């Protein structure tokens, strides 16, 4: 799987608008993807193998030797689908939205910027008409509320940033998507890429990798109009941001696990601990962790060891999860 790239598209409400354009653009990359997986999140999913456009798109994939898979998703939101892609065992995942048209050299360019220290690379994601050209953007998480996203305008030089959005190439299996977000998955990619940054990886915004974003008033997360869901997700985002200078530790497991973790705690940078057994590892409650972050599975050490196919000690697994 070294340097192999899975392309992941999560789709909803765009069968006959932008999705075929996105697939076509993926097929025409100068550096072909090694596999394309499409997560179908539609409420009324359709089998498109007899649709004349899709029939030919699927044939084009096969002619070009690109493996592809169409998966019926759980309708929980695109973050669940991206998390599935994240844990499929690939080195890199290139996520492309179902209303994106990456120019043919995008993947080749993004890959050229990768090295062992890089966690994610994104190019410009431009929505016509262009609105944010000539604005100096830092890409800092501290400026998230007062500057446009760096990918919304032409990127002229490589810049190290804190977060990306929409479409980017990322190192898979290193950080989890927050599955506590609602189906609208507001801020999911910001939380995800910033999480990679917090794990010590560089996040890069790079030039000459333009993806066109055919922003549509319908489909995708705009299929949801429940404002409360956005507010709920924003709350999780704010809570995460508030504690961003800490290492969040959640011990939702047994007493023995707490005892083993205790040896690791002194080596964790600025920890904030939530624990089941505060008499062993002092901390705030698990209930509070769930309220703050929505989902705490990302801290489940057993799930992590399973994902990592772990054979070393539990103590070392904790170190991998929490020590940067």
């Amino acid at each position, binding site marked *: 799987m070294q340097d192999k790239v899975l392309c992941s598209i999560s789709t909803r409400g765009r069968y006959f608008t932008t999705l075929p354009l996105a697939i076509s653009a993926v097929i025409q990359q100068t550096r072909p993807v090694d596999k394309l997986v499409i997560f179908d999140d539609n409420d009324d999913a359709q089998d498109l193998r007899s649709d004349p456009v899709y029939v030919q798109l699927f044939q084009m994939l096969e002619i070009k030797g690109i493996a592809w898979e169409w998966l019926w998703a759980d309708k929980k939101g695109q973050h669940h689908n991206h998390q599935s892609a994240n844990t499929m065992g690939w080195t890199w995942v290139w996520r492309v939205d179902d209303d994106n048209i990456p120019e043919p050299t995008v993947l080749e360019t993004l890959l050229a910027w990768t090295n062992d220290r890089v966690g994610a690379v994104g190019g410009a994601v431009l929505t016509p008409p262009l609105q944010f050209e000539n604005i100096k953007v830092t890409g800092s998480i501290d400026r998230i509320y007062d500057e446009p996203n760096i990918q919304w305008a032409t990127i002229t030089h490589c810049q190290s940033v804190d977060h990306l959005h929409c479409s980017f190439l990322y190192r898979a299996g290193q950080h989890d998507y927050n599955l506590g977000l609602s189906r609208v998955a507001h801020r999911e990619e910001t939380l995800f890429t910033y999480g990679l940054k917090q794990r010590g990886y560089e996040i890069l915004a790079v030039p000459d990798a333009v993806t066109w974003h055919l922003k549509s008033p319908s489909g995708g997360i705009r299929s949801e109009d429940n404002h409360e869901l956005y507010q709920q997700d924003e709350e999780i985002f704010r809570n995460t941001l508030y504690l961003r200078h800490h290492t969040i530790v959640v011990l939702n497991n047994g007493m023995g696990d707490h005892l083993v973790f205790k040896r690791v705690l002194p080596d964790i940078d600025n920890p904030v601990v939530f624990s089941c057994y505060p008499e062993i590892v002092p901390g705030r409650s698990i209930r509070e962790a769930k309220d703050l972050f929505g989902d705490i599975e990302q801290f489940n050490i057993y*799930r992590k060891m399973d994902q990592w196919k772990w054979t070393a000690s539990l103590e070392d697994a904790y170190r991998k999860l929490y020590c940067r």
Partner: protein
Amino acid sequence: MIIISPYAKALPNGGVNPKNYPFWSELISMISEPIVQVGVHGEQPLVDDLRFGLSLPDLAVLIAQCRTWISCDSFFQHYCWDLGKPGIVLWGQSDPNIYGHHSNINLLKDRSYLYHNQFLSWDLMPLRTDCWVEPQTVLTALQRF
């Protein structure tokens, strides 16, 4: 005095934890020194001297007083490790390389008995009696303390 901690935490489905050693009675009958059994209320007594439901500080005091201890793969082995008191851990299908500590004597019959997925809930693991060391092996290990 030797402490035994025979049982791992009861399973959510109420079933017997497959990490429990099945030959405690035979083993106990072979040991010729006082034995204290620790655990939680409701567990099956194996000896006369039972200390169930102790607080962590009280358990620590008891552990400090014992010559050594014998346990299945449970909280107790981690607690003794944390306190710096070495003992014997009886392993069946869980992996001492992951969950054990080098300071203990970890008795595993054979790695071929380890459950294929060490990270799922233990209630998915089958109950087996063929995956454990014999009581005589435990007794021999006990003589090393």
